[in-house]
């Protein structure tokens, strides 16, 4: 039995114009006892609503949420054995850092001495030892983030909910916190449900990613699966940079299949499960292409310098959408206007059934 079991969760909002929008439209999700699960999707996809219905700040219109087999839906937020890290951190400005961190114990009536020991322990876990006497206003953004984290783990919840907690931090700090969060989760041995719209964040930290759109789950899987084997165009497009090709299979040659776009761009696909004449969509990441002496001919329209790499936009000679290619920068690197040839490993192509 999974730690958290969500079944057929439905939540309908009434818009100011009187219309009805399903923020959650039949969501099923299991979270394991020591799992880092990320809810990922564009804004308005229902990921925050799902998180808030676990914490109890949103009531469901249908379906159930159970923790350890016990139904949560009848409990008010303050009786639910889960804790949340809020996007705005929501630190209590009129309290010291130590009192913020010990708040969950304070309201449970834990004795002062015992509380202080736990607070010191929690502050140490997030790397803020000795900061207890300060006010939240005296801390930097990253430190506030850690206080919010310490405050939410002090009551030892089995499940921690995180609502885009890193979105206010700058890039370097965010990347550092991503690794720290993942390490903390492993050390604490509790489940994290993490909401983000940042796909890079999701890929870095998660055991499993839940991709959502319009109140529904599009795909659940480990980061590599989501990236390499997206189930549909939406997931392929949303996670990372993608080239999508609408192709018709022309002929099968052993383990390879030759396919062609209406504009005449030819690609080689793994032939497994394909028949000649079939319409398919192929997914190729920018790094799946290499510059070669022969192959798909095209012209570089733009070359974007990214430091170590170059991001090329290549217009195929036959026409059709520009192809995005990642190439190593160097003396031989092409620039805008150059004619190039692109090659790819057929095994790297991920084939979707045509929509």
């Amino acid at each position: 039995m999974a730690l958290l079991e969500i079944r057929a969760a439905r939540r309908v909002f009434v818009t100011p114009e009187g219309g009805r929008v399903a923020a959650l439209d039949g969501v099923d999700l299991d979270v394991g006892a020591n799992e880092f699960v990320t809810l990922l999707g564009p804004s308005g996809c229902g990921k925050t609503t799902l998180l808030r219905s676990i914490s109890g700040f949103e009531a469901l219109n249908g379906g159930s949420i159970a923790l350890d087999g016990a139904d949560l839906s009848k409990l008010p937020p303050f009786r639910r054995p889960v804790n949340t890290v809020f996007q705005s951190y929501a630190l209590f400005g009129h309290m010291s850092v130590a009192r913020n961190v010990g708040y969950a114990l304070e309201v449970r009536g834990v004795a002062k001495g015992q509380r202080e020991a736990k607070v010191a322990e929690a502050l140490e876990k997030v790397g803020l030892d000795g900061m207890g006497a300060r006010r939240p206003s005296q801390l930097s953004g990253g430190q506030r983030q850690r206080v919010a984290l310490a405050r939410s783990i002090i009551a030892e919840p089995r499940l921690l909910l995180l609502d885009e907690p890193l979105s206010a931090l700058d890039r370097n700090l965010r990347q550092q916190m991503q690794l720290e969060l993942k390490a903390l989760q492993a050390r604490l041995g509790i489940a994290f449900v993490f909401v983000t719209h940042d796909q890079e964040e999701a890929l870095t930290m998660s055991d499993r990613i839940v991709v959502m759109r319009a109140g529904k789950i599009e795909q659940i899987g480990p980061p590599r699966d989501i990236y390499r084997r997206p189930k549909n165009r939406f997931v392929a497009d949303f996670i990372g940079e993608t080239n999508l090709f609408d192709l018709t299979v022309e002929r099968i040659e052993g383990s390879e299949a030759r396919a062609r776009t209406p504009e005449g761009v030819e690609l080689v696909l793994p032939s497994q499960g394909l028949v000649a004449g079939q319409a398919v969509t192929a997914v190729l990441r920018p790094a799946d292409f290499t510059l070669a002496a022969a192959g798909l001919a095209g012209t570089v329209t733009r070359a974007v310098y990214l430091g170590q790499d170059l991001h090329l936009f290549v217009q195929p000679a036959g026409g059709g959408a520009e192809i995005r290619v990642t190439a190593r920068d160097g003396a031989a690197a092409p620039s805008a206007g150059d004619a190039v040839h692109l090659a790819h490993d057929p095994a790297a192509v991920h084939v979707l059934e045509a929509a």
Partner: protein
Amino acid sequence: MRNPIGWAALTVFALAFFVFIYAPLFVIIGYSFNSNPVNMMVWDHFTFDWYRGLLGLADRSQDGAAQNRALYIESTDQMLAALRTSLTVAAFTTTISTVIGTATAIALARYRFRLKGVYNGFLMLPMMMPDIVLGIGLLIFFVTIGMNLSMLTIIIGHCTFLTSYVFIIVQARMAGLDPALEEASADLGASEWVTLRKVLLPQLAPGILGGALLAFVISMDDLVITYFVAGTGDTTLPVFIFGMIRRGVKPEINAIATLIILASVVIAATGLWLRSRKTD
């Protein structure tokens, strides 16, 4: 780039503005130390007599003239009784309107209910209403329901409009508050009552204190509404002073005014200090 002529003009304008605002106050403070009992606009010499007279100390003076001057104030006891009435009314009014105003601000910010907009509008109305209309309305209302005019009717009268003042100030603070604070408290296991006590009220404290101070000052200061709803035995300080002035402007008025200015400055400074304290 600053235009020097424009800048000079602005400086002069600003100085003139402050003179216009504060000159009357300094005139009164000056006159309160002028010993001339007949014409306060002609400087005689410096004296504390008017203050001594207020406090009922003048008759102990060996100076016969000072004793005569002390007769100008009809009764120190009457004035102190008026001050006591004012303080009692202000204390009750401040407490009641602060509690109701704060509770209303929280309710309107956090809960959704029918006719919320109408309710909001009605809360603003007593502030817009001319005092004289409110005073007459209250008087007619009290007479209609057969309520004797007393200190209680003054308190009720003051609460009707001061609740709105407190409400508006606390509501402004409430609007700037992150709703996630209350959610975080609930999330960490606090019931609504504990959240109110440990998070919401401390966060709103500067607004609540500001509203309470304003209510206190306005209640102490109110003449028009009090004039209509006060019973015969319940004279507040403004009503007492107004009564004195009707029988001629006497030097003691200046001393009373100076003391009131002093008290107001202390209260206002306290309020500003409380507001400036950081809460986040």
